[in-house]
C-alpha cells in the first residue's frame, strides 16, 4: 500500500520573507554589484551584456540574467560512488551527511590535544568514514602536512581516491590545483564525458564576504562547470563583521553572492550543476570568533536552504559540528542541534561531522559519535510510517494476561525499520555499564574505531587505478620539488 508519511519540517521564514530576501538580492546585484576578480568570469559576464567597472573588478548583474540562470540550473544532481554503481540524489528533501572538510588539525586520540595531520591520519580517517553508514559522502576532511603546502589540496583527494568508495566533497586551495584534481577524477571514471555523466566529487567554492568572488574561487566555478562537475557555493558571512548583523540581512547578502556564483557557472556552461550552500556564522562580538554551534548560525543555514528550495535548487550547509576543543558535552549539544535542524530543513548536503574548534579540527572519535547523531536525525525525518492497515487493531487478537508483543511476527517484521540502532550511545543498565568498565562515550568511540577499521575493505577499483593516480600525483609533487610521495600505509584488502 502507498505510505502516507508526513516528513517533519522546520521553516524559519514566511513566504513573504522569502520573496523579500530574493527581491533584495536581485536589487543588490543590480545596484551595488559584485566584485569578480577573475578575467575569464568577467569576460563571460561582459559577453552576457552586464555592466562592468574593469578598474574595480566590479560587475552589475541584471535580474533577468539571474532568472535565466535559475532556469538552466538543474534542480537536482546525482552523484555516483567510485565504481559508478550507487547513486545519490542531491535534491528534493534528501539529506546526506559528510565530514567537515579541510581541517588543519586532528585531535589526537591519546593526548586529546590538537596536532598536525600526516598521510597516515588521512588514510585512517578515510577508512573509518567508509564504515560510517550514516555519512553518505566522504570529504577531503584533513590537510596533510607531510607534503608541500602547494600540493596539499590535490594530495588529500589523491589519498581519498586510493581508499574510498563514497563520493567526495572537496575543493582547491590554489588555482593551479584544479586541473590535476579533475585529472584524478577523470582517471577514475575513464574519460571526461563519463565523469560529467556520473559526478564523483563536488567542488566547494567560497565567495569572500562581502560580495566578492576571488580569482581562485571564480576559476573553480568556471572550470568545474565546463566539465559538468558540481560546484557547491559556500558563502560565509559573519553577522555584524563581514555581513549585516541581522540574520535577514545576512541572508540577502548570502543570496546575492550565491546568485553571482550561479550566473558565472551557467554562463560557463548552461545546465552546469550548482548547489546553494554556505558556512555563515553568527559572529561572536566578544571573542571575534565564528561559532558554528550558535543557534543564529543554524537559523541562517536553515532559512537559506528554505530560500534555495523555493528557487528549486539543491542545498548544502555547514551544520552538525561544534566549536568545543574536546569531544565533550558541548560537542554533543552543538552537533546534535545542527544535525537535527539540517535534517528537518531538508538540506541535501550537510557538512560538519567530526569537526571541532570552528571548522579547524577533525576527531576520529567525534566522527564515530556523529555517525550516531546523524543516524538518529535521519530516523527522525523518515517520520512515522503507517506500515499496515489496520495500524494495530489486529494485533490485539490474542490479548491475554501474559501477552506481550515480542513474540509477534509483526514485531519481527517491522522493528528494524521502526528503530535506529546506535553503535556508541550508552543504553546499558547501570550494573552492566559498570561491569563493562564505566566507559564514557569518548572511550566507547575509541573502541568502536578499532572495530570499524577492522571491517574496512579497500575497493578493488582503488587498487586497479592506483598506478594511474600515483602517476598524476607524482608529477604534481615533482613540479614543486618533492621527489617521492610519503609512504601510504599498507591496508589489508
Amino acid at each position, binding site marked *: 500500500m502507498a505510505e502516507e508519511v508526513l516528513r517533519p519540517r522546520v521553516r524559519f521564514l514566511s513566504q513573504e520573507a522569502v520573496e523579500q530576501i530574493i527581491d533584495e538580492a536581485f536589487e543588490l546585484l543590480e545596484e551595488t554589484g559584485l566584485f569578480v576578480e577573475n578575467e575569464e568570469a568577467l569576460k563571460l559576464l561582459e559577453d552576457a551584456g552586464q555592466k562592468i567597472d574593469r578598474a574595480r573588478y566590479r560587475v552589475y548583474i541584471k535580474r533577468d540574467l539571474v532568472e535565466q540562470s535559475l532556469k538552466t540550473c538543474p534542480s537536482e544532481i546525482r552523484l555516483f560512488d567510485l565504481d559508478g554503481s550507487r547513486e545519490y540524489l542531491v535534491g528534493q528533501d534528501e539529506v546526506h551527511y559528510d565530514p567537515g572538510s579541510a581541517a*588543519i*588539525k586532528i585531535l589526537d586520540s591519546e593526548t586529546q590535544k590538537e596536532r598536525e595531520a600526516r598521510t597516515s591520519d588521512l588514510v585512517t580517517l578515510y577508512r573509518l568514514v567508509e564504515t560510517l553508514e550514516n555519512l553518505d559522502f566522504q570529504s577531503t576532511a584533513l590537510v596533510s602536512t607531510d607534503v608541500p*603546502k602547494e600540493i596539499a589540496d590535490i594530495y588529500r583527494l589523491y589519498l581519498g581516491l586510493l581508499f574510498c568508495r563514497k563520493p567526495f566533497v572537496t575543493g582547491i586551495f590554489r588555482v593551479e590545483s584544479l586541473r590535476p584534481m579533475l585529472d584524478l577524477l577523470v582517471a577514475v571514471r575513464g574519460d571526461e564525458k563519463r565523469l560529467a555523466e556520473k559526478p564523483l566529487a563536488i567542488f566547494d567554492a567560497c565567495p*569572500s564576504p562581502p560580495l566578492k568572488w576571488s580569482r581562485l574561487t571564480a576559476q573553480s566555478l568556471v572550470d568545474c562547470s565546463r566539465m559538468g562537475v558540481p560546484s557547491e557555493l559556500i558563502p560565509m558571512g559573519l553577522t*555584524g563583521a*563581514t555581513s549585516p548583523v541581522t540574520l535577514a540581512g545576512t541572508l540577502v547578502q548570502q543570496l546575492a553572492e550565491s546568485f553571482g556564483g550561479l550566473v558565472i557557472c551557467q554562463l560557463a556552461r548552461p545546465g552546469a550543476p550548482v548547489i546553494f550552500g554556505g558556512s555563515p556564522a553568527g559572529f561572536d*562580538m*566578544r571573542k*571575534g570568533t565564528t561559532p558554528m554551534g550558535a543557534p543564529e548560525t543554524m537559523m541562517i543555514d536553515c532559512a537559506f536552504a528554505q530560500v534555495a528550495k523555493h528557487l528549486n535548487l539543491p542545498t548544502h550547509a555547514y551544520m552538525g559540528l561544534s566549536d568545543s576543543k574536546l569531544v565533550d558535552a558541548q560537542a554533543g549539544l552543538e552537533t546534535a542541534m545542527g544535525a537535527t535542524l539540517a535534517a528537518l530543513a531538508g538540506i541535501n548536503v550537510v557538512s560538519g561531522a567530526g569537526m571541532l574548534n570552528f571548522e*579547524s579540527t577533525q576527531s576520529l572519535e567525534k566522527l564515530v559519535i556523529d555517525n550516531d547523531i546523524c543516524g538518529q536525525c535521519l530516523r527522525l525525518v523518515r517520520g512515522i510510517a503507517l506500515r499496515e492497515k489496520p495500524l494495530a487493531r489486529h494485533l490485539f487478537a490474542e490479548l491475554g494476561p501474559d501477552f506481550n508483543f515480542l513474540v509477534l511476527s509483526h514485531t519481527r517484521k517491522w522493528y528494524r525499520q521502526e528503530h535506529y540502532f546506535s553503535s556508541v550511545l550508552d543504553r546499558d543498565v547501570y550494573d552492566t555499564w559498570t561491569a563493562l568498565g564505566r566507559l564514557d562515550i569518548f572511550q566507547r568511540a575509541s573502541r568502536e574505531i578499532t572495530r570499524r577499521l577492522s571491517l574496512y575493505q579497500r575497493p578493488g577499483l582503488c587498487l586497479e587505478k592506483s598506478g594511474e593516480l600515483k602517476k598524476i600525483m607524482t608529477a604534481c609533487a615533482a613540479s614543486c620539488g618533492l621527489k617521492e610521495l610519503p609512504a601510504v600505509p599498507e591496508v589489508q584488502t
Partner: protein
Amino acid sequence: MKPELNNLLHSLKQSIIQGQVDEAGPLARKALASGLEALQVIEKACVPAIEEVGRLWEAGDYFLPELIAGAEAMKAAMTVLQEALKSAGQSLKSAGRVIIGTVEGDIHDIGKNLVASMLRASGFEVIDLGADVKIDKFVDMAERERADIIALSALLTTTMLNQKKVVDLLVSRGLRDKIKVMVGGAPVTEKFAREIGADGYGESAVQAVSVARSLMSGRGGSHG
C-alpha cells in the same frame, strides 16, 4: 576650572566612552572654542575616555561594536584637537610609530583594523599596510618610516608562519635590534610568539595597546 568647562570635558569624555562618533568631534571643537587648551582636552577627556573603553572591554561589559565605536569617536575628537595643536605650532608626543598589516596569504583584516584603531586612539602613529602584505614590504616600510614596531596579524594557521618570516628577514637585514615585533590573530599564542622570536603578543586589541606601550618603554627613546 569653571563648572561649564568641566561639564564640557565630561560630555566629551562620555561621548567617546559611549562611542558617539558624530558628537565627539563637535564637542572637541566646542571645548576649544570655550578657551580650553588642546593638550588639556586630550589629557583630561580623551585619554581617560579611551582608557575607560579599554577597562569596560576587559571587564566584559563592552563587546566589539562598542570597542570599535569608542576608538572611532576618539579618532574624531583627536582629529580636531591635533589640527588645533598643529596650527598653534605644537605637536603631540607620539607614543610610537607602528607598521601594521595582515601577513601574506591572509586576507582577514577585521582584527588588524581593530588593533590599528585602538593603537591610534591610544596615541600611536599607525601606518596600515592592509591585508595580504608581502614579507619584505613590512621590513622595507619599517626601515623607510623608521618605525618602532611592526605589528603582524594572521588569522589562518597556514599563514601564521609568515609572521616568523618577517622576524627572520629583520634579522638577516640587521634590523632586529632596531625594530620590535608584535604578533596577534586567532591562531597565535604567547608561546608561538616566543618561538618565532617576536617581542610581544596581545590576545585582544586592548591588550595590543598595553603590549605596544611596554615595548616602547623598553626602547628608551621614541620619535617626537
